[in-house]
Every structure is written in C-alpha cells, then in structure tokens.
C-alpha cells in the first residue's frame, strides 16, 4: 500500500490535523479538496467497495446501476454467469451506457452512437466504424489504427461473499477474505450464511457529509442515548453484555450486545438520562416481539466494512446499507432489508414488524438521519476547530467488554489518516 501511505502534503497543510485520533477537525466534513481526494485514496484505493447483492441480478444479462464513491458503475451478471462491475461510461464521448437503474441486456449499447460492448466491457463494434458506402464512395469511419482493445469500458476487480458483491479499482489490495478478516467474515456468515431474500429497499438522503453517518454507525455510545425507543425497551442498552470488535488494521468493526444480560446500571435512572421514559408502554407490543435467532444469543450487531458499508442485525431485523457520498455536504444511504429462505411465516412476519424500527421512518433509526445534518450546521463555521472523541480513552484497542466507548470511531479515523496520507 506504499502508494497510499504517501503523505499528502498539500492537504495535510490545509487541514493541519494534530496527531492522534481523538480529535477530528470540522473541516474534514466540508472541504471540497478533502472530498475529491477521498474519491481517489479511499474509494479507488485499497478497498473492497460493496456495490449490491447477487440476488438482484440472478439471471445472465441482469444488471443494476450503483456507485463506487460517486463514480457511476454497472453491476451485472455476464453471459458466463460471472458478476462484473464496470464504470458506467462509454469510451467514446463519456455517455452513461446504462440509463435505467436495472434491466437485462446481452450486450451493452450506448444510445448516443451505438458503440457496443460485451458484458465484460470489451468494445465489440462501432456504428459506421468502417464508414458509409463501399470502396471509392466510402466516407467516414474510424482511423485504421484505432485500437478497440484499448477502448473498452473500465472494468473493476470483483469478489462476492455470501451474496454481497464487492468491487475495487485497486490492483494491489489483498483478496476480499483477507481484507475482511476472520471475525468480520464470521459475522457476515452468521447473518447471511443461510442465503438472503430481499424484503425491501429504500433510500435515505441526508444533508451531511457521508463520514458523519459512518461515525454514527461506529458510535456504540450514542445508540441507547439518542434512540430513546431502544433504551426504553431494552433492545440495546450500554449496560447489556457486549463489546466492540475491530478487524486487524482497524478497518472494520462490529458492535454487538446480548439483551438477556442487562446489568443494573444507575445511569439509566430516568432522572439522569433523557433517553429513558418511565411508564412508556406500547399499545401493540408485537412491534418489538422477537425470537432467539442465533445460538450466540447476540441480539444486536452493527458491523461496518470500510469505507461505507454497514451490515445490520437489530434483533431479527437484517439489513445491508451503503452510504454514498454526494458531494461534501450530502450523502445517500441505500438500504437492502433482508430475510432468509428458511424463515417461517411467523418469523417473516416478525421481521416485517421489526422493520418499523429501521430506515428513514424507523422509530429507532430515524434519528440517525438527522444528527449528521445538525453537526454539519453546528460546525459550518470554526472549520479549524475539532470534535472530542475520547470516550473510552484515546487509543484504538478493541473493547472486549462494554460499548461506552468511541474506540471504533477513533479506529475509523486512524485508517482514514493512513489512506488519505494526512
């Protein structure tokens, strides 16, 4: 990873970030140069970017469009049945090759001048490439020395893991399995190993830098405080048994808890935390009805895969999320809400009811859609000032016990600074 460990002198100069991961300059959430560099060093750096799930493209020729960072890509299954990811841009004059969000094509034809590519992105033909007419009357056409092989669509490296599709621009990044590491793979297998059924998708568009949302997902500290619903019904309280796992190198993380193990914790005395309301009962408790789905007893697991993918288990609610940067001050969160082929009708019903806790309208997670925007507004001025990320210390050692810590956030910035060279 020599290339990315290269220090980024100009940016370093602009951001002047003191050493360590316990302070984050506000500027990092708004600066356009920082944003542009992220596209190169993170999303096109030594990362495996989540771009979709296999069962959206079951048949040969099926495709969906998505983004790697803010680069438009096509995710498809080629005629050999292999998953391919191509930059959605025609080599001719740069037109989007796939206009629709999804479809099925045996080849890719650009509508502008009908340049045709196969599903691996190789340029196959050019309309009137040989000109019009024959022999003497022949006119136009491409130069004889035009090299079709050098004018294909940009194709990314692809690997899949239990139905999740990952792509990378990097030639040097380690294989996906190694990139994820044992614990991350285990958690994905635990949740998706039974296969997946897509129960729903939606998008949440947020008025904040994408990193503010990623910090939020790495932030086990806020979970039971901001989301009163969660604390009140003991879906997730910091006093439950649980912890933070970090992959080697700290790229990825898992924050997990086990509901049955709630320790008595005076901090949850409602007089002290606004997060707990007394005498707050549901008219229809079926909303939070759940079943013990995993032997390990884990009832909550939020996993992030660097840079912008989230794997979610909240009780029996399973989802994948992708946080797409849309300029320095906006981002879009794509959701895939999942079930498994083994679900009984009762279990499926429970997953559907629990879906009321997640997404842009989820009684638990709707708050995550708005805090980022508030921070964006609160820090707009004083760009040179910094946040304080010191809960649980200033280091990045995983926390075997307890989640009243921001260690996973510090770890996120450690990786960020390494990759960005600042």
């Amino acid at each position, binding site marked *: 990873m020599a290339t990315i460990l290269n220090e980024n002198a100009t940016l370093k100069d602009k951001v002047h970030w003191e050493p360590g991961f316990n302070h984050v300059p506000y500027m990092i959430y708004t600066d356009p140069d920082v944003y542009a560099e992220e596209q190169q060093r993170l999303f096109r750096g030594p990362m495996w970017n989540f771009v979709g799930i296999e069962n959206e493209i079951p048949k040969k020729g099926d495709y969906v469009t998505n983004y790697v960072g803010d680069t438009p890509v096509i995710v498809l299954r080629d005629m050999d049945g292999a998953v391919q990811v191509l930059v959605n841009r025609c080599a001719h004059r740069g037109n989007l090759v796939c206009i629709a969000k999804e479809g099925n094509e045996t080849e890719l034809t650009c509508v502008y001048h009908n340049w045709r590519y196969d599903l691996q992105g190789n340029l196959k033909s050019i309309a009137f490439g040989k000109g019009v007419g024959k022999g003497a009357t022949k006119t136009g056409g491409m130069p004889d020395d035009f090299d079709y092989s050098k004018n294909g669509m940009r194709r990314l490296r692809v690997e899949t893991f239990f139905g999740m599709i990952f792509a990378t621009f990097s030639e040097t990044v380690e294989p996906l399995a190694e990139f994820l590491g044992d614990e991350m793979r285990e958690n994905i297998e635990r949740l998706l190993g039974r296969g997946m059924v897509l129960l729903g998708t939606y998008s949440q568009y947020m008025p904040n830098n994408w990193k503010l949302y990623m910090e939020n997902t790495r932030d086990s500290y806020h979970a039971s405080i901001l989301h009163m619903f969660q604390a009140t019904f003991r879906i997730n309280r910091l006093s439950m048994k649980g912890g933070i796992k970090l992959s080697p190198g700290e790229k990825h993380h898992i924050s997990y808890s086990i509901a049955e193990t709630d320790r008595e914790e005076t901090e949850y005395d409602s007089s002290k935390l606004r997060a707990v309301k007394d005498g707050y009962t549901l008219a229809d408790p079926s909303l939070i009805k759940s079943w013990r789905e995993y032997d390990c007893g884990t009832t909550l697991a939020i996993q992030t895969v660097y840079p912008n993918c989230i794997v979610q288990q909240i009780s029996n609610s399973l989802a994948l999320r992708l946080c797409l940067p849309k300029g320095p001050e906006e981002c879009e969160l794509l959701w895939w809400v999942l079930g498994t082929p083994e679900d009984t009708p009762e279990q499926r019903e429970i997953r559907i009811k629990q879906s009321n806790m997640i997404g842009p*309208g989820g009684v638990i997670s709707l708050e995550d859609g708005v805090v980022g925007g508030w921070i964006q507004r609160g820090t707009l001025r004083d760009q040179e000032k910094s946040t304080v990320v010191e809960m649980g210390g200033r280091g990045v050692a995983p926390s075997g016990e307890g989640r009243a810590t921001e260690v996973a956030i510090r770890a996120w910035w450690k990786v960020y600074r390494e990759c960005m060279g600042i």
Partner: protein
Amino acid sequence: MDGTANIAVDVRQRIEDLIADYAHMIDDDRLEEWPDYFVEDCYYRMIDRHSYAKGYTIGIMECSSRGMLQDRILALREANVFEPHCYRHLLSGTRITGEKDGVYTVVTSYTIIRTMQEGDMSVFSAGKYLDEVVFEGGEPKFRSRLVICDSNRVHTLIVIPI
C-alpha cells in the same frame, strides 16, 4: 373507471370528506386523532411505487393494528428526536374504483409540502393513496390505507405519517 356508477352521491361525498379531513388532521398536528380514522383491525403501509410493483413486503412504515398507529404517535411525541416541521397535503382526483361487501376501494393522488421551522419548504413526497373504506356505526373509516410514494427516497427522515 366507472366503479362509481352505482355509488350513492352522499356515500361518495362522505368518503371524500373522510380523506380531506384526514389530511387536515395531520397538517394541523392533531396526530392523536390519527388512529381514530381507522377501524381497530386496520392496515397502514407506506412504500414506494417501484417496490410496490415488485411486491416487496417491507416499505417505509408498516402498521397492522390501530395499536401500532397509537404507538407511532406516542413515539413521535415522547421518544423520537427530530427538528420541528409540518406538512401540507395536496389531494387530487379522489375516485372510488369499486365496492364489494360494503368495502369501498378508493384512489387519491397526493403531494406533501414540508416546511421546516426556519421556513424552508420542499416537495417532501408525492404519490397516491390506495384505500379501503368501510362504514362503522355509520362513520366512514379506513380499513386499509396504502401510501404509494413515487420516490424511493426520503429526505432526512419521516416521522409524521402521510
């Protein structure tokens, strides 16, 4: 559509009034009344048109009892954290598309303008309601209300029902 052919004029009027009153109730922030517009054993669901066409079973909101509607409002009032804002419903083209065993199927287009406390307005949602209306004790009520949004995107969050 001539589902309305055999529908008595006043029935039609009262169903249209139900749908109009529902919108005023939400826009006036009288949300505690929300569940009263439904029968006990009701269904309320919000999902985008694309997902609806694909038959996805999960959307933005899913309430399968009046109790869940009450809980939504309780959460909104007591638990959820968000910035004060209000809606303005615009309704258009309410049409009764059929009637069977006293259950009227009704379609209505809607658009919602959301206004934040500092004054910025935006088109928050557009789509249509697919309703099943029954008369309970002489009063029209929703047995089922599907909100089919044209967009799969929600800006920031959605906590006030549509």
